[in-house]
């Protein structure tokens, strides 16, 4: 990327506020960056960092209640003062957008090619003939790697990855100079995610476009972007080339974020979680946004807002203490621990699944979801269950906890036959439910919004075994690292990570011996995810809990499990100790999963 390339987009001191009569709140606060032709930049941030709002501000698509100020110039033209009519001419031809969920971008009543054809114009802006549009749409489908006959399909007849490709082809139909991709791969399967990122990168290079990739995933950003901008609480904290940030971050936040992220290649001895949660921009208005959570905080971090300053060629950081603390940074690099766990000690089985099968009636036909599943979890053991969405891993978990009825096979939980929850005597059923509990994926839906945290926990305690020392709701909250005063709150007042802790506390109420975690950290921010993973580790150590981790994230699996099962299309295709399976995958599917983990190397090989 030569520095002489034309500056396509230049954002200066962008602010986005929520405005209401008598109240105003800053959501994006003083962000500046630029994008040149033929360059890919990344905007990385956790939830509430303002990254999506920045994208929307650029395109003039902010919700009515939000207001942008500052300056956004596209090829020298100020966008913030441009009329809606003029803006709509720039959208599509100048700047185009790809969103996270491909299916919400495509109208379900229109064929794939119609989404592309409606965007097509001749070079002079006039309409093309029907046959010319058809031919051009097919050519453009080819550009995103799809055969022309896909054009005749409806969005619900294609997979998520294909829908995202169609969305990309539509976004590129007027040959924009700048493409903004907001979490383009997040809603997709791991294996598809890699393909879409590859495609974006290739397309950008072939067309010499500018590309802004917005993502929460540092690994994704490193794999695709030339430069990465780290956002936090509505502010820009650090800017640098991908490799530089990866090898030598110059802001405590970036540094801690990298440490909080599990590594797919090695297990970290300690996953360094960042304490606390992302603040609201208004709460840190006059100080360093990261100060409340920073280990190296000093008075000068709290008294004024540190400016973002240049520390090297193309390197910016908003840390005032960076020269004093950089040496400390280096001293706390990650330690790795590749011991294969204590897997050899024979222990009592807590869960055993034998020849399990499950199929759903689908009209007159039968959809087979699981076949010949054999799986064991021993007391105190941590086992991973890995696979793409649709592989049947969640159905398996639901069978184990009795939310689904298996079609065939046997499930034994703590020595009790739990294959048929309906036919079981109530007493046995209760015993099974006190042995195995589940933590669900979406912390925003797994707590009843109409009930207080205390009510949720207390009702769970009523079904616990009538032991002599039953914990109180407050004890449970403290067990998962929340103050007991939270019992009076309602879920709406809690962050995602806090809600997930409450969900874990609820599961712990019945003193289970096995916890099934169905994608329990995948909806959380990286820094919070590390907190929850550490909580799981503590629970395993202190209470001797066994875990069954259901996830698509191999780095998480590497970090927390002793053994894994790899599931594909309802069958277990590979099993073994986590370390050996991930280091030497035997099955082609496992290899494909491993290959699809975003790695920095993608950038260099993709050239």
């Amino acid at each position, binding site marked *: 990327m030569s520095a002489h390339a034309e500056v396509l987009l230049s954002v200066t001191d962008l602010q986005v506020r929520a405005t209401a009569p008598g109240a105003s709140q800053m959501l994006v606060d003083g962000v500046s960056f630029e994008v040149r032709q033929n360059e890919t930049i990344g905007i990385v941030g956790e939830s509430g960092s303002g990254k999506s709002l920045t994208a929307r501000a650029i395109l003039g698509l902010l919700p009515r209640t939000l207001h942008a100020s500052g300056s956004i110039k596209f090829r020298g033209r100020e966008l913030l003062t441009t009329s809606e009519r003029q803006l709509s001419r720039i959208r599509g031809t100048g700047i185009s957008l790809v969103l996270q969920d491909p299916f919400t971008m495509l109208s379900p009543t229109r064929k794939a090619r119609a989404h592309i054809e409606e965007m097509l114009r001749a070079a002079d802006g006039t309409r093309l003939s029907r046959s010319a549009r058809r031919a051009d749409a097919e050519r453009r489908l080819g550009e995103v790697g799809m055969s022309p006959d896909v054009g005749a399909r409806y969005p619900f007849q294609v997979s998520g990855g294909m829908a995202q490709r169609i969305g990309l082809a539509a976004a590129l139909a007027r040959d924009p100079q700048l493409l903004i991709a907001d979490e383009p791969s997040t809603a997709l399967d791991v294996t598809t995610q890699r393909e879409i990122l590859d495609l974006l990168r290739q397309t950008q290079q072939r067309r010499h476009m500018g590309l802004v990739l917005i993502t929460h995933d540092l690994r994704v950003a490193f794999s695709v972007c030339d430069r990465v901008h780290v956002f936090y609480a509505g502010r820009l904290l650090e800017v640098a080339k991908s490799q530089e940030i990866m090898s030598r971050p110059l802001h405590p936040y970036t540094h801690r974020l990298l440490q909080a992220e599990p590594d797919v290649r090695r297990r970290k001895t300690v996953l360094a979680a960042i304490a606390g949660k992302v603040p609201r921009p208004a709460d840190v208005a006059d100080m360093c946004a990261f100060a409340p959570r920073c280990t190296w905080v000093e008075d000068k971090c709290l008294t004024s807002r540190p400016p973002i300053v240049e520390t090297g060629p193309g390197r910016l950081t908003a840390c005032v203490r960076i020269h004093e603390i950089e040496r400390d940074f280096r001293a706390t690099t990650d330690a790795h621990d590749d011991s294969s766990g204590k897997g050899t000690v024979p222990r009592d089985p807590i869960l055993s699944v034998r020849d399990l099968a499950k199929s759903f009636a689908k009209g007159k036909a039968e959809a087979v979801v699981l076949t010949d599943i054999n799986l064991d979890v021993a007391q105190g053991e941590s086992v991973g269950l890995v696979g793409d969405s649709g592989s049947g891993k969640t159905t398996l978990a639901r069978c184990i906890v009795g939310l689904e009825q298996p079609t065939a096979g046997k499930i034994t939980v703590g020595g009790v036959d739990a294959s048929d929850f309906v036919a079981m005597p109530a007493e046995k059923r209760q015993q099974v439910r006190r042995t195995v509990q589940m933590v669900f994926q979406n912390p925003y839906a797994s707590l*009843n919004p109409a009930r207080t945290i205390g009510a949720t926990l207390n009702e769970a305690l009523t079904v616990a075994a009538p032991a002599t020392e039953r914990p109180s709701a407050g004890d449970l909250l403290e067990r998962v690292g929340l103050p007991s005063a939270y019992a009076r709150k309602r879920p709406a007042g809690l962050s995602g990570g806090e809600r997930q802790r409450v969900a874990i506390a609820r599961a712990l109420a019945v003193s289970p011996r096995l916890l099934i975690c169905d994608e329990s950290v995948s909806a959380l921010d990286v820094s919070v995810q590390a907190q929850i993973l550490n909580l799981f580790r503590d629970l395993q150590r202190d209470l001797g809990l066994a875990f069954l981790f259901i996830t698509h994230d191999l780095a998480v699996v590497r970090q927390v499990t002793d053994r894994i099962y790899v599931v594909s299309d309802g069958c277990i295709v590979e099993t073994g100790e986590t370390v050996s399976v991930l280091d030497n995958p035997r099955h082609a599917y496992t290899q494909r999963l491993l290959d699809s983990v975003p790695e920095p190397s993608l950038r260099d090989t993709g050239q």
Partner: protein
Amino acid sequence: MTHAADLEATRGADRAAFGRGTWQRRPTLLVLIALVIVAIVVAIALFGRLVAPQDPSLQNLTAATASPSGAHWLGTDNLGRDILSRVLAGGGQALIGPLVIAFGAMVISVVVGIWAGYTGGWFEGATMRLVDLGYALPPLLVALVLAGVMGGGYWIGVAVLLVLFSPYDIRIIRSVALEQRGLPYVEAARTLGLSRIWIMTRHILPNVVPFMIVDFCLDFAFALVTLSGLSYLGLGAPPGSPDWGRMLSDNQSQIFGNPLGALAPGLLILLTAAAVNVLGDWAAERMAASGGMS
């Protein structure tokens, strides 16, 4: 973080910006007006008979069809009865029937709707077919026919409307319960081994409340109008009783003599129905905003 959570954060910020102390929590002027109207109507219903300046049935044929005056603020009807007294005295009867209908339909729909939606199975199938049957019957027409056959009467009308209104509410409550059944927090309660009754009362019911309130208000308003209609057609309240619907029809013929004889009860019906509707919407919105529903 995912896009959804990002939006969640934005929404949280919205809520923080707009939520406390600003317009979203403060009732609008329209709601305040509705509140005042409902308060007045309730006061009329409770104390109307006591404060009526005259006996509502006292006839004075020499002063028949008089325009408003100091003695008769709203004038008199064709039998010389004081309109104001009759309007005040009729308030209780005007409200009690719709209240019974709305409350009865709410209780029936919550019990049957939640049970059908959450447990499913044959009960749901049978209930929903009955509901379909109810949908096929036009309430006013059926009420007219039945009241006609059975000789009319206010409470027959109330009973018929209660039966005919319930299916609409049952269908709504059932669909809400059905939606709740698949949510993770309900599934979490199931995996804990909590009983069905407990889950239905502690988990489903609180989330159904906003819908119950809206249903209640819609039913009340609709029942008020329909019952008045029955009385208007001579099939509700008995002749001579100070019923708003009845007065509307009886005094129609004097519309050029004393227009207030028909307009006063008619306006009261209209304003009450509209005010209750507005309040219902406002209450449901408020509950949704305070985190009762997501």
